[in-house]
């Protein structure tokens, strides 16, 4: 359980995190989504007591992180996979963490196995690791203390699709055993694959949060028929908002069944009828990133 209440961080005149509140509940993988520079990492560092908050508070397992005795045994944290001494071997990194948190050193092998790092890889120095291997090592450090909570900043960064799949299974399994997971990403696809709840942040503020399916679902129906003009007329008469799509078909602000009824009443033959694509979150997300990547968003969302 992670509780964040009115967390705010100011750097001089600029506000990095602005009155952010959310809870991360056990049994779920909560995705923390936002474009680069939205305040994800700052928020996570404040949760972990590394960055002092300007105002507001964050509690992990009911306490401020810094008040947890031996936090490595309660909360697994990965904030930057690249932040490891390049001269240490992967095994040594885990050994130090095990010594510090008092974990049985036999757990090192189990954990290496769990994240898919081989004996030989673990004997190599971290400086020679690929980003994907560093992520696996970082996740291993986070899991080493057998924690109840995981806080992972961009853990899928550098993982290949198979790696993302592996991580989803791992986190799913962790959450299903009652664990609490908060993981961040700036990629919607990545979060979509891993998380079942979402907190979306943009320019330091929470702009949406809730169940992933609810957020992704856009109320509306896509319909294509032999006579879209007549169908659009019938639907508008019924009071539904209709948008004619340039690619053919209609986007209707109504449930599919109501669109079907209207079509039957008007005697129009349907060619396709389904709930609209989950574009809501994506639109919101592109809007958020628009300032940082104007060119890209113009290409992806033609006016």
């Amino acid at each position, binding site marked *: 359980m992670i509780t964040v209440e009115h967390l705010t961080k100011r750097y001089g005149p600029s506000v990095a995190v602005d009155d952010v509140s959310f809870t991360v509940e056990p049994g779920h993988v909560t995705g923390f989504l936002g474009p680069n520079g939205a305040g994800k990492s700052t928020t996570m560092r404040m949760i972990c007591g590394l960055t002092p908050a300007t105002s507001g508070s964050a509690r992990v397992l009911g306490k401020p992180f810094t008040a947890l005795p031996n936090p490595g045994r309660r909360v697994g944290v990965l904030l930057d996979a690249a932040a490891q001494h390049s001269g240490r071997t992967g095994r040594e990194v885990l050994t130090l963490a095990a010594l510090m948190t*008092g974990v049985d050193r036999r757990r090192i092998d189990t954990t290496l196995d769990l994240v898919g790092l081989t004996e030989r890889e673990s004997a190599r120095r971290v400086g020679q690791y690929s980003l994907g291997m560093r992520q696996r090592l970082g996740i291993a450090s986070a899991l080493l203390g057998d924690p109840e909570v995981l806080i992972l900043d961009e853990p899928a960064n550098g993982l290949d699709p198979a790696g993302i799949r592996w991580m989803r299974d791992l986190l799913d399994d962790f959450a299903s055993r009652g664990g609490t997971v908060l993981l961040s990403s700036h990629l919607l696809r990545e979060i979509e694959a891993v998380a079942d709840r979402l907190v979306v942040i943009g320019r330091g503020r929470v702009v949406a949060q809730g169940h992933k399916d609810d957020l992704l679902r856009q109320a509306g129906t896509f319909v294509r028929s032999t006579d879209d003009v007549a169908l659009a007329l019938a639907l508008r008469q019924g009071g539904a908002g209709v948008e004619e799509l340039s690619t053919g078909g209609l986007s209707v602000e109504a449930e599919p069944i109501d669109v079907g009824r209207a079509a039957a009443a008007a005697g129009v033959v349907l060619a396709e009828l389904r709930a609209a694509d989950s574009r809501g979150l994506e639109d919101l997300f592109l809007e958020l990133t628009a300032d940082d990547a104007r060119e890209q968003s113009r290409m992806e969302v033609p006016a």
Partner: protein
Amino acid sequence: MTTASSNALRQAQEPPVETRTRRTRTTPDVRPLTFATLTLVEWRKQLDTRAGRWLLAVIAIVTAGVLAVMVAVNGGNHSFSAFVVGTTTPMAMLLPIVGVLAATSEWSQRTALVTFTLEPRRTRVGLAKVVAAIGSGLALLVVTVGLAALAHLLVVAFRDADPAWDVTARAVLYLALSVVLFMAQGVGFGLLLRSTPAAIVTLLLAPTLFGLVGGLVPGMADVLPWIDLGTAGEPLLFGSALDGEGWAQLGTATLIWVVAPLAGGLWRVERSEISSS
């Protein structure tokens, strides 16, 4: 993989969360971190990289080199204590670097993020670094005194030097005290400046410049021993007895050059934001 298949199964059935089996902890006793654990981990961190091991090895090699030169040149007729004194200058230059690296590597290698997540009480980590660095320094001191004894043994045996085993317990204690000061100073400057080159340059140059400039200012000659650690600490390195005033001078100079930077460094670490960039 079994995890994957069981996950696929779970997704297919989509059981409500409430009915999922609650997690049972396999490790019920979570003991708080002790300072001893922290110190041992910090000590290990000084030795578990090539850079760290090489630094200690280089100090031992330089010491051995100085002794070898003393053995070889000008008949080599030196007493045990002369050999010990010969090793102290390179030690005084190099030992604080061990302390500096113990502190700055957390930032240059960005491990601070992990360290202070596992132990949020940052001052304890800083103090553990000081104690661990002192441990390394004292171990090196033992090696140095051993090498000096060996050097004296060599000149007595092969170069007809007069045997003079004249190193007193007091001289060794003084050296040990200076090691403590060097290490605390090194960690202090490291924590304060967080950059290896900046900390080393400051550490080596600042006291020298301070002594130099101080010597030029008229009337400073009387004050200098009270505020310059190089002057006040000289008896520790060269084995001359410290009287009451000497101890007092060492105290004030230590306050300025060791306690103040260390306190400032610890304060800065406690207060500041730990980030990866």
